[in-house]
């Protein structure tokens, strides 16, 4: 079958695809994990970005490299490091298990950790760039007007960098929504428990369940593109105001 026939077949399949064939559980889990991971990555990531943009200290570049590393590390390597850091034998993993009676790895918590670690560098890098673009004279003006560093950040830098920060958070959400490798390493691929949409698509294709895969592919693509569309609109509205 040539590629044109295959493409036509896919289109026909997509257009005639009944919505009831979409398995919702992995999609819902993906959205849940991505939302929680994005909130965590945004809070911690924006704080780190603000610190790196404003503080001058020895080793700043090293901190920047450590925070950004997840972007360049292969997912398997990052997943391995996470397993070592939060696995059942690690201090963190052991403490978590003692406190909550469940482990981090191979649970939904693990999926959130994996998505957060993958999304965080995008928040830090893009937010820092946006924060650093704010005119230094405005920051000096705020300080002389009695604003402490945190107030200066919240009322001046953060406000003026809001477009860049919003874009960074949206990018992080998209990254968290589509995470595959790190999630597989840290949370596993347990249907109904840790199987996110990306993992379910992979499983469906491996098992030759084309319809199930296509349903998730379409649903995931629509969700991701809708979020990006809305975020672009929000950014534009904020800019116009």
């Amino acid at each position, binding site marked *: 079958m040539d590629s044109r026939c295959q493409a036509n077949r896919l289109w026909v399949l997509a257009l005639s695809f009944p919505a009831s064939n979409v398995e919702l559980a992995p999609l819902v889990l993906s959205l849940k994990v991505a939302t929680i991971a994005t909130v965590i990555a945004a809070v911690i990531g924006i704080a780190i970005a603000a610190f790196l943009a404003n503080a001058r200290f020895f080793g700043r570049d090293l901190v920047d490299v450590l925070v950004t590393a997840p972007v360049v590390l292969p997912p398997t390597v990052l997943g391995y490091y996470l397993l070592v850091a939060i696995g059942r034998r690690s201090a963190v993993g052991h403490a978590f298990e003692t406190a909550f009676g469940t482990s981090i790895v191979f649970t939904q918590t693990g999926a959130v950790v994996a998505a957060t670690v993958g999304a965080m560098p995008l928040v830090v890098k893009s937010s820092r760039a946006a924060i650093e673009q704010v005119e230094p004279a405005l920051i000096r003006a705020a300080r*002389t007007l*009695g604003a402490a560093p945190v107030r200066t950040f919240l009322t001046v830098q953060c406000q003026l960098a809001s477009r860049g920060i919003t874009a960074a958070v949206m990018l992080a959400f998209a990254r968290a929504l589509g995470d595959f490798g790190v999630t597989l390493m840290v949370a596993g691929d347990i249907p109904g428990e840790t199987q996110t949409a990306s993992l379910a698509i992979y499983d469906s294709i491996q098992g030759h369940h084309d319809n199930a895969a296509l349903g998730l592919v379409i649903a995931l693509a629509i969700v991701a593109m809708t979020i990006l569309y809305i975020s672009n609109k929000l950014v534009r509205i904020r800019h116009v105001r």
Partner: protein
Amino acid sequence: MLGSVADSTLCVQARVRGDERFDLDVAFTVPAGVTVLLGPSGSGKSTTLNLIAGLVRPIAGRITLGQELWFDASRGVDVPVHRRRVGFLFQSLALFPHMTAVENVAYGMSSRRPSARARAVEWLQRLHVAHVADRKPRTFSGGEAQRVALARALASSPRVVLLDEPFTAVDTVLRRELLADVQMFVRALRVPVVLVTHDRQDARALADRFVILEAGRVARIGEGKDLDYGVEWNQLTTSS
């Protein structure tokens, strides 16, 4: 606490690591009233304002306001910028572009006081720009922006006022009006005021005292009435 004029004298004795040309090394006092800081471009005038405000950290020296120690290198004291309560009118004005005029002016007022907005509007009225109260800086004319920035600098009850070439890029008529406003409001505050300018008329109109900087050092200190004697204005308005 009300301080007497003597209590509010600003004493600056500081050394700041400069560029490859020279370090800034200055020592002078600024009593209540206007002290004009003169000097060729690059002589260290803006750096001097920044070190008074706490935006630049000296490598040595001591800065005091009355009995209050702001900076002492030997004792490791460095009061942060936001606790010095300095009214700084920047050359670029540095109005917050995302805030209205009234929000800009109210920014430096204590948020604990409920009437910050009303007082900010009062300051805008005093400076004849109440009509821009709810507009953002991108809609201001040059003169309106200057007045709003001046209102913001003065409205925060500053203990020291720093004016960095506030009348550049305005026409003669507006300059005269702004000079009158500065004279009236700044003098009413009865605090030390440091004005950086290249303009002889501005200096004459406002100076109670003057300090001339040359290559990062104090070259001369004098009374305002002596500005016309022995001051080489041509040298002060050219690059060093």
